[in-house]
């Protein structure tokens, strides 16, 4: 009796993944102070806490500073094309429900070149966790305006400031059919960043976390008003949302009890401009996932292919003379 038990225990110990098990042999090359570092840490912690087998976990990204994240994970990674992370992730998930799929995408990647895919990905509601690293600027290509840049932002392509109001990724997402999980986090409150990503991961469906991410290289002071003044951050708390530690609660007094089931309030809160809402804005566990809707009734086997092909061929076949079909009717 005892031998199998020890073996069993040994195996559990053996298979326990530590933080290091999720760190690749490449060290991150983001700038010092870049918010992406904190996002990576949170994701690695999540993988450890959820004990995700690295070989069953896929990190998909587009192109941009933020899209370098998969290189720093010890897991399967897919660092593809600018704007196209979401359709690649959908293709991966479609026939492989056993894989845990994460997507890292920048504000240019997601809300500009990949905007069509972003809208449709929400509608498909495939089970994946999407981290929108929103630094409100193009980092990798060196400081051009992004569709989420605040109006008036001076950049290399808008030396006298941008002319247009930004796209609000939250309200936009909340307007799409089948939306099932929208949250917002900021890189400078790591505790909540982790919490929110964890809830996103645990939600079955398309979970989008917009993360306000600092880019000290190109916009070193952009988020200062919020980083320096906790009162301008509104924490959305709820028993179905995030709960605060005592310490956090003391620093961040601007709190609102927000039920993630309330889409109307979610839209209102998302529209705030002076304050940054942080928390779970919206969650609906009942939206079906596209991959489940499209799951075949029968698995694809050689026998089935043979049967179906023969049935189809029968519809189109002219038989030789001796065949009885002519005489039958």
């Amino acid at each position, binding site marked *: 009796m005892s031998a199998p038990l020890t073996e069993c225990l040994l195996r559990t110990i053996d298979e326990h993944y530590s933080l290091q098990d999720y760190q*690749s042999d*490449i060290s991150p090359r983001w700038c010092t102070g870049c918010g992406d570092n904190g996002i990576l840490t949170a994701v690695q912690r999540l993988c450890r806490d959820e004990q995700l*087998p*690295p*070989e*069953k976990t*896929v*990190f*998909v990204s587009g192109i941009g500073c933020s899209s370098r994240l*998969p*290189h720093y*994970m*010890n*897991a*399967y*990674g*897919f*660092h*593809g*094309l600018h704007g*196209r992370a*979401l*359709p*690649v*992730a*959908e*293709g*991966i*998930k*479609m*026939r*492989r429900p*056993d*894989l845990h799929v994460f997507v890292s995408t920048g504000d240019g990647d997601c809300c500009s070149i990949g905007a*069509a*895919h972003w*809208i*449709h990905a929400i509608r498909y509601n495939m089970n994946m966790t999407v981290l929108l690293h929103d630094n409100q600027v193009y980092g990798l290509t060196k400081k051009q305006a992004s569709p989420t840049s605040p109006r008036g932002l001076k950049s290399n392509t808008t030396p006298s400031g941008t002319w247009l109001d930004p796209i609000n990724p939250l309200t936009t997402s909340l307007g799409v059919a089948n939306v099932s999980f929208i949250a917002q986090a900021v890189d400078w409150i790591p505790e909540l960043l982790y919490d929110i990503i964890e809830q996103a991961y645990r939600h079955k469906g398309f979970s989008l976390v917009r993360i306000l991410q600092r880019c000290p290289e190109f916009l070193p002071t952009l988020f200062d008003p919020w980083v320096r003044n906790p009162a301008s951050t509104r924490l959305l708390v709820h028993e179905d949302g995030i709960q605060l530690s005592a310490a956090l609660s003391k620093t961040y007094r601007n709190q609102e009890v927000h039920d993630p089931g309330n889409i109307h309030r979610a839209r209102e809160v998302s529209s705030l401009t002076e304050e940054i809402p942080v928390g779970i804005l919206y969650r609906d566990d009942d939206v079906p996932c596209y991959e489940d809707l*499209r799951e*075949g*009734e*029968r*698995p*694809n*086997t*050689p026998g*089935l*292919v043979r049967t*179906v*092909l023969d049935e*189809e*061929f029968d519809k*189109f*076949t*002219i038989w*030789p*003379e001796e*065949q009885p079909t*002519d005489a039958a*009717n």
Partner: protein
Amino acid sequence: MEIIPAEIQPPARSIAGASGNRIRLASERVTNGGDGADLVIAFNEQVLLSRVRANELNQDCIILLEDKWRTDQDADIAAAYATVCDELTASGYRLHEVPMEEECLKLVPDPRRGKNMFALGMLCSIYSMDLELAREQVRFTFRKKDEKITLRNIELLEAGWNWAKANLDIKFTIPASRPREPQIVVNGNTALALGVVASGMEVCAMYPITPATSASHYLSEIFEKVGCVVHQAEDEIAACAFAVGASYAGKCALTITSGPGLSLKQEVIGLAVMSEIPLVVIDVQRGGPSTGQPTKVEQGDLFAAMFGGHGDAPKIVMAASTIEDCFYSVITARKIAETFNMVVVVLTDASLATAQQPFPRPHFSEQWLAPPVDQSAIASGARPYDWDPKTGLATRFIPGQPNGMHCLTGLAHDRDSHVAYDPDINQEGIRHRGLKLAAFQKTLKAPALFGGEEGDLLLVGWGSTKGAIEEAVTRLREEGQAVSAMHFKFLQPMASGIEDVLHRFKKVMTIENNWCDQFDDGLIDGENRRYTALAMLLRSRFLVDVDCWGEVRGQPIKPGTIATVARDAMNGMR
């Protein structure tokens, strides 16, 4: 073959709005649409004009024309009808005015929904067909409908038969040759879809585009029955990326499109090449560039398929030349894609897509299917791009395989899939990805020659023109001319032995459905002439002075046209 207008409901009686079917009958196997029509049935004189102007009718063509327009209440219509009839008769066509609607009215309240059966009945009589067989077909076609509908249609069929028998003195007999083995009759797009099922691919991601869509329609009907998915994505870029994602996750997937969609997919195709993900891309070519001629045939995408994306992106390009070939090409393409971890582009076109042709019913083989997704552990120390120095091949690591974790990237990368910063590594990667093409090329045999092994003129083609070119060669050889044909299935890479063939003929000329400059345009000379696509490839690869002939009329090239072109070319040689 179908004649498809650009609009869903083109204005009635418009010249551009002609829609219809071309049928070629013979006692032996028909390989192409043939030359001009010997007999045509038209429901109004205007649509007929479009066929006359396109030179689609033989000089003494028999025309059976709906006659109700002669007495139309609108004087303009009646006048137009009368004028066209006079013109047609004057041009030598054998015009018969037929009261089709009037006759049908005796049986149905709305003759517009029945005169097709009447026309079919006339054809059965004219071509001495067995009326009982026709009745059977009608019963089969309407088997899911109310019995009354079947009966009504049979009555219309018989009415047409009787009317023709009583009023027309036209009779042909083309004896049927019954097949010795079962044949299936489908169009090229249906064949493609059947090929997809037979290939073992499980995901087809697409965005609707003419003339590729009908393949996806039929596939949508049958794919779920074998537990697979047709995903209509938000656009072609997403469709291609979706297929790449599915392929990366274990089994080769496909995307199917036409010219404009191929252009959009190019960046993703490049990613698949760079990261060595197997992918099958089917391009049902239509007229281009831009939106071009959506419903018309053209072979304009060869270079887009080969070189369409940026950078050096070697991929395999093959072309289906018959409807049967559409079926088997998909199976072959999937196999090659997964063996070499490459992108395989299969080119078909609008004429293959809608034309029907019988071919032997395929016998399913499990060999066609893909093996199950490999989830075994990767040996420790193995590297995701451990390129074989001789063949360039590397093993594919699939998510789920323990020890295989790596970050695939579209950036230049080393054997560990790490982003390459070392100048040698980009060279290494490009070299090995290119070597795979050579490794595959070694498996190819030069295409067999049609006609003789050497001679005066060699006609070279690819894709749907095969039947027409070979029929032209047969006619020319019957005239005693030393003409042969060679037809390419693989355009990239090309098989060994082709150069040798080119040298065995005094003149080599490609026949293609894409553009080449003509010397009768004053500005065109030997230094600036643009050649058809295949000619350009052959010239640059083999340094042989290959000539070319091409047209972009949106119609399949006719065997008679090719024969004339070949005769002219040989006259030029003398």
